[in-house]
């Protein structure tokens, strides 16, 4: 078993606390690592750009960097929440000698050059809700809306994820892969069917699925073939 990074001084009133969804990502990456999935894909010698959107505590990005799961990677993370970004950088530095990490305060991948990302990870705010709170003033770090923004995803919990799915083709490099988490109430089989009929250059499959109490979680791989 690969060790789980330690997160120090997590302020759970401001930053998403790692939960079943986070650990599903770790288990998925551990499994892919055992199958040597990423080393088999990367027999050439070019660097990989990895982007985690909404990194929160930074557990997922730190885990894959600490255990060298994706070869020759430079890890970018984005979050709208500044406290999350600082926590991510601390978690990264506390757990690994690897220093190839940088944090950007940004909506999704809006500030990333097009078609550059080789691996994208997103554990989104996916809980269905009437509405999504508006983003507070950037300096208002004690506003309670920040933690709500980590959780709620509007209608079907899909508002934020749909925004990302619509721009995925522009974000990923060719052969790039996005790993995105869904819960049952996101109606992911329908979401995936719709995506596949719109973006015929993508292959989509479910990599891991798990029942967690009353919640059922799944992570899909969206691979841009051309």
């Amino acid at each position, binding site marked *: 078993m690969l060790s789980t990074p330690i997160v120090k001084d997590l302020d759970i009133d401001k930053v998403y606390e790692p939960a079943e969804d986070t650990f599903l990502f770790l288990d998925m990456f551990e499994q892919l690592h055992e199958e040597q999935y990423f080393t088999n894909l990367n027999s050439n*010698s070019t660097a990989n750009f990895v982007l985690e959107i909404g990194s929160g505590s930074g557990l997922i990005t730190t885990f894959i960097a600490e255990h060298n799961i994706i070869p*020759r990677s430079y890890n970018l993370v984005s979050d709208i929440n500044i406290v999350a970004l600082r926590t991510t950088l601390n978690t990264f530095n506390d757990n690994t000698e690897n220093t190839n990490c940088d944090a950007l*305060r*940004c909506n999704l991948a809006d500030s990333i050059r097009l078609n550059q990302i080789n691996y994208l990870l997103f554990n989104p705010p996916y809980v269905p809700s009437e509405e999504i709170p508006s983003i507070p003033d950037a300096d208002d770090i004690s506003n309670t809306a920040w933690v709500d923004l980590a959780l709620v995803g509007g209608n079907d919990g899909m508002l934020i994820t749909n925004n990302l799915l619509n721009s995925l083709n522009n974000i990923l490099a060719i052969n790039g892969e996005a790993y995105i988490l869904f819960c049952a109430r996101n109606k992911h089989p329908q979401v995936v069917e719709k995506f596949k009929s719109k973006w015929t250059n993508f292959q989509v499959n479910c990599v891991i699925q798990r029942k967690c109490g009353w919640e059922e979680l799944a992570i899909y791989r969206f691979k841009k073939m051309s």
Partner: protein
Amino acid sequence: MKFITSNFVRCAVKSCDGTEGSFPLNFQDCKLQLEEQEFNEEFIISMLERLDWSALVKVASQLGNNAIPPQKPSLDDINEVLLKDLHSLLLETQIIEGKMICDNCQHVYYIKDGIASFLLPPHLAK
């Protein structure tokens, strides 16, 4: 923000998508800090192919570094001195404070305490 990241960020305003001025951003009033890091030759070489060289030269010069060759060196004429210079520029140079300005829409993004912010005010957000 590490220098290398400047090679992968662009203006976040929707109407700047794909325009020439949206990348690279213009760096101004930057405060830099060198954070020593272990030199990994293989990693720098693996990165070369991914870099937009003219953007790299432009931003380096905005930060006061005019020592970068104007053309991307080929793998044949690359040497350890140059690789070490690149290591120091790309991975060790941190931009702690500063501004990044889009040539296309003139929007100013700020770097504070080492973290760049690309959050847009509501009227510019998508």
